[in-house]
């Protein structure tokens, strides 16, 4: 896999793990949970080959705090988990965001709430994009829909983490993590990244560094939050990513992210064959959300259909983007059920005929 032109047949989980290694990540801390186990398994074998460290933590709580320690020590580090495990990590993620430490967190979503199930789901959209942990912070969230994109976004994630001094989340699901597809690894870019002069390394030859998140004086904490917010505004200005598919002449637009967007493309092909001009908007960054992609076309499109593997989460952001200019319908399957392309075709036809949303 050292030759970048070589194609490998990998699961999404393995592609993320190998892409992380190719990005210079040498530290992995995690705890077993289905359906992401191939990531820690791969790393436990791969990292020692490159003088890295794989360490299985006693819990997701410990794992994310080990990530805190390693990220603070100035190296590229990651963890991966699935929905209930990510819930356990939320305290640590808030601390990492507050301390402005770069790292990658992978969430291969499964059905919830509670122990839920191990089948694919997208029901952590809120948890990933609307906080998750406590306090005024944001995670930059990347949602791949193919194995190739899982690898590419992993490499991008490490650069974004270092550029913004921020935790980055890859939000996949049991499908994108476990399906196998050919993948080609690109060269890691990693150019013009800021020096990590804030890292904890032992204060040899310099004033000591301190990584802290406690600011008991409200004036100071407010300034701190305003500073964090300027960073998030920078992400909003510069990092929105979206795929527009067959949108130019579309009368109905489907909005979907991750795995569901692939199903929607098949539906669009069938619908266009029957004379219904359907298109797709696929947000790749869920935060920052590409509101503009929706507001720009809201006047030209009759209806939007948001399709998700949950009870309706991203649909709230789509509605914010449309801002009342068009009707926004929702179709969701949940609990590990996946919408079929026939179901989406049926739903588009129904609302195209004037059916209620």
């Amino acid at each position, binding site marked *: 896999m050292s030759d970048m032109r070589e194609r490998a047949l990998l699961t999404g989980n393995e592609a993320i793990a190998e892409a992380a290694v190719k990005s210079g990540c040498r530290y992995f801390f995690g705890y077993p949970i289905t359906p992401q186990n191939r990531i820690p398994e791969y790393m436990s074998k791969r990292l020692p080959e490159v003088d890295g460290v794989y360490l299985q933590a006693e819990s997701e709580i410990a794992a994310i705090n080990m990530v805190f320690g390693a990220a603070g020590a100035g190296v590229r580090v990651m963890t991966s988990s699935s929905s209930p495990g990510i819930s356990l990590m939320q305290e640590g993620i808030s601390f990492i965001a507050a301390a402005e430490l770069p790292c990658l967190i992978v969430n291969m979503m499964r059905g919830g709430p509670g122990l839920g199930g191990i089948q694919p789901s997208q029901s952590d959209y809120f948890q990933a994009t609307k906080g998750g942990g406590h306090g005024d912070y944001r995670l930059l969230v990347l949602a791949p829909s193919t194995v190739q994109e899982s690898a590419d976004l992993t490499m991008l994630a490490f650069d974004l983490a270092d550029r913004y001094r921020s935790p980055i989340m890859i939000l996949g699901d049991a499908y994108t993590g476990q399906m196998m597809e050919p993948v080609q690894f690109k060269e890691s870019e990693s150019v013009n990244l800021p020096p990590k002069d804030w890292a904890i390394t*032992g204060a040899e030859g310099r004033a000591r560094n301190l990584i802290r998140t406690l600011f008991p004086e409200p004036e100071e904490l407010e300034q701190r939050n305003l500073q964090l917010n300027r960073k998030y505004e920078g992400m909003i200005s510069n990092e929105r990513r979206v795929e527009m598919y067959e949108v130019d002449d579309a009368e109905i637009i489907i909005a979907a992210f991750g795995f569901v967007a692939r199903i929607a493309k098949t539906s669009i092909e069938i619908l266009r064959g029957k004379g219904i001009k359907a298109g797709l908007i696929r947000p790749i960054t869920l935060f920052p959300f590409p509101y503009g992609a929706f507001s720009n076309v809201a006047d030209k499109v009759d209806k939007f259909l948001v399709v998700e593997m949950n009870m309706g989460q991203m649909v709230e952001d789509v509605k914010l983007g449309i801002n009342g200019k068009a009707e926004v319908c929702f179709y969701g399957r949940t609990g590990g059920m996946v919408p079929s392309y026939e179901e989406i075709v049926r739903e588009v036809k129904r609302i195209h005929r004037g059916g209620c949303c």
Partner: protein
Amino acid sequence: MLLTMIKTFQRPKSMFPRQTHYCPGCGHGIVHRLLAEVIDELGIRDRVVGVAPVGCSVFLYNYIDCDMYEAAHGRAPAVITGFKRVHPDKVAFTYQGDGDLASIGMAEIIHAAARGERITVIFINNAVYGMTGGQMAPTSLLGQKTTTSLLGRLSEVAGYPIKMCELLSTLEGATYIARVSVNIPKNVIGAKRAIRKGFEVQIEGLGFSMIEVLSQCPTGWKVSPVEALRFVEKEMIPIYPLGEFKSPEMNVK
């Protein structure tokens, strides 16, 4: 003729010239000083890294001049594990109270010890939650009155005090485990010796070390500083006996 006076008792170099925020009679200031003296004596100020806990000693970094993290409540052993796995050549310590280490952070400390992490843990046991106003701790004594055990800790309701040294010394990964106190000068000297030995065990690459320090909290206990010193002697040491619970074969410098 000028008489030259030589200062024999000075502020450790790795300690900032600053008054502490601790209450009169608190043990934290003593232990901070011992820690700084050991850092100076071992000459490790440029390669030592600490983790401050959640609790009164969260501001440890305001007093000790070295690279430091501030961890989430109880997670210091996990944070320092992340650091030490990246920089195995550096010297790493956590400083944790009884709520932080023996309650919310029990999983992290047990597993750090079981893994034999090359770290030194300074564990301050004052049998009470100090920062939040004197609530019952996992190490509160039976019968001890706190703001959440007004009639005294009852075993039927709140179980028994946790003895961390006894617990951790059962683990193969734990190399040096000792309990000391800072209530009288003799014990302060012993506490410094144990803290130094804990760091030496780490520097020699021998494994995990924890020094439990019985410390006085007059404010949390609602007694005078002098009564607090007596409480350590009369009430705590009989339940939490001092000494080395586990120690490696080594030449102490």
